[in-house]
């Protein structure tokens, strides 16, 4: 639609208004791909899935409107609750650990030390690879019964358990995988640390503030916007993790649903059972939940994030 309006670029417009009008038209021409994408790939599908969430639909027959039945069904669905529990545990444990490691290493690496670039690269590498199927395959092997972890434990005389077969420990292996990818928030922290004016530390040192006090009263407050940014990003990312859980559990989310990530459950319902109405309902619950979490994060940020005055 925007293309046609651009073709009708009006040369008879008064000169002053013309610049603005021209920009208005040009902007819409430039943004045509995005606007089409927004409508066709994002907005309409969102509306469609909202409608589907209130239907019974298996792709073969046409959707049948069933009111809020899908949402009622959620309440009694044990696997839904299992996936919620697994995902929340995963996010609440792995994200703080991951950010903690990222911050700790960023602090150790700061201050123009020798070999900084090398260390940064080495720690960053796992973030690039961490979401691949190949690394999930590796993880399956590392924590398998005859895997690397148990081999290492055997060297010191401890008999390891079967980490992936044990519902108590299976999720832990995925948490470790996420913590392992602390490199990308670490790089962001490093960039943030470099933004803190050096004079602040100098004057604190002149005043005799200890390293710990400097950390608590300069580094942390100055870094809070970056911490906040990383927290939002990693939380949203963790809620949507899929590959690890799918590959490590062979697509089942087992043992006993102990690695059933929420997204894996959506996938199973939508694309294995082809229960697409129910899967849409699940997806919308995830969307609303992420939106709520993000809103809460932003609301709370007023109390602890310091933006420069």
């Amino acid at each position, binding site marked *: 639609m925007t293309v046609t309006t651009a073709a009708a670029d009006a040369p008879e417009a008064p000169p002053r208004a013309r610049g603005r009008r021209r*920009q*208005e038209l*040009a*902007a819409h021409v*430039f*943004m045509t*791909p*995005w606007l089409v*994408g*927004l409508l066709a*790939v*994002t907005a309409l*599908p*969102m509306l469609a*899935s909202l409608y589907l969430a209130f239907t019974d639909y298996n*792709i073969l027959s046409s959707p049948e409107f069933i009111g809020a039945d899908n949402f009622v069904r959620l309440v009694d669905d044990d696997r839904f609750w299992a996936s919620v529990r697994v995902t929340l545990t995963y996010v609440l444990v792995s994200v703080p650990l991951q950010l903690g490691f990222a911050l700790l290493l960023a602090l*150790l690496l700061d201050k123009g*030390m*020798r070999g900084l*670039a*090398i260390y940064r*690269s*080495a*720690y*960053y*590498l796992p973030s*690039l690879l961490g*979401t*691949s*199927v*190949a*690394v999930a*395959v590796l*993880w*399956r*092997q*590392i924590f398998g019964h005859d895997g*690397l972890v148990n*081999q290492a434990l055997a*060297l010191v005389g401890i008999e390891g358990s079967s980490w992936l077969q044990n519902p108590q420990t299976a999720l832990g292996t995925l948490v470790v995988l996420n913590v392992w990818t602390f490199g990308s928030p670490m*790089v962001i922290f*490093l*960039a943030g640390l470099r933004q803190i004016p050096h004079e602040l530390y100098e004057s604190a040192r002149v005043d005799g503030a200890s390293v710990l006090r400097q950390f608590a009263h300069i580094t942390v407050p100055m870094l809070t916007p970056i911490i906040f940014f*990383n927290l939002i*990003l990693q939380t*949203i*990312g963790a809620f*949507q993790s899929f590959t690890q859980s*799918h*590959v490590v559990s062979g697509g089942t989310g087992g043992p006993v649903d102990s690695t059933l990530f929420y*997204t894996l459950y*959506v*996938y199973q319902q*939508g*694309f294995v059972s082809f229960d*697409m109405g129910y899967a849409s309902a699940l*997806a*919308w619950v995830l*969307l609303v939940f*992420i939106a709520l979490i993000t809103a809460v994060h932003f609301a709370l940020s007023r109390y602890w994030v310091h933006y420069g005055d």
Partner: protein
Amino acid sequence: MSEQILDRTLEPVQRPATAPPPPATVGRRRRVRTAWLRHLGLIVFGLFMLYPLLWMTVSAFKPSNLVLSDPSLIPSELTLDNFRQGWTSANQPFWVFFGNSLVVAVSSIVGNLFSCSLTAYALARLEFRARKLYFAIVLVSVMLPMHVVVIPQYIVFSQLDLVNTFVPLILPKFLATDAFFIFLMVQFIRSIPRDLDQAAWLDGAGPFKTFWYVVLPLMRPALVTTAIFTFIWTWNDFFGQLIYLTESSVFTVPVALNSLVDSQSQSGIGMLLAMSVLTLLPILAFFVFAQKYLIQGISTTGLK
């Protein structure tokens, strides 16, 4: 390049032999010692972190029975059997999957460069009424989980008979759905001095010429970063490819690898690891040769 990295990695270790003994002041000596302790700790921790990757690489060259019994990095026996067997262990030889992944990745790069740069230029430089609203939508859509749109998208693509083609994976990229890159490019264009494109504008070049001849060449670093991250994300993407690709002739690397996992027993672990290593090589290449852009990219926008 990799030699350079190796040299510099070894640097701290070599230093005690060559560096002169530190001056005898106690404070200085202690500082030197803590610096050494820190390096030591960082190196040990780094090795610990990278050990799984090193182990996977070495294991790919070990006979399968040794993979499961020998955790060391120095294999007693080397073999290429894992690669030979792995390459043909799926329904198609692996080059088919590499080729498919490459087609999807390169098309996605072209799509993202095209659509995101146009959108970003408009948002960063042109004045129009809906600009703030559009930019807000871009920011929000960065956070939107794809799972809420994937089901209706799938339904549409399957009705158009486009399942088991690459269209569902590529088309959205030409429609600027990777909002993160729009954000990255907007930030970058804003850092370009406005005088440059205003001069072109005053010389009578319209928005299109200004974009093409002035802004686009200047935003090369952002374009390179976008291209690299698009490649890595597409290469690693599993969810989308798993849903749309169900016939082995159109399998991409992650989907093929996943199908191997399901079909292999423990005795096939060697070739599974060998194929895993191969699939990581393109990403490692970018890691080695395009570091600068990767680090810049995440430092400025928080890409993964």
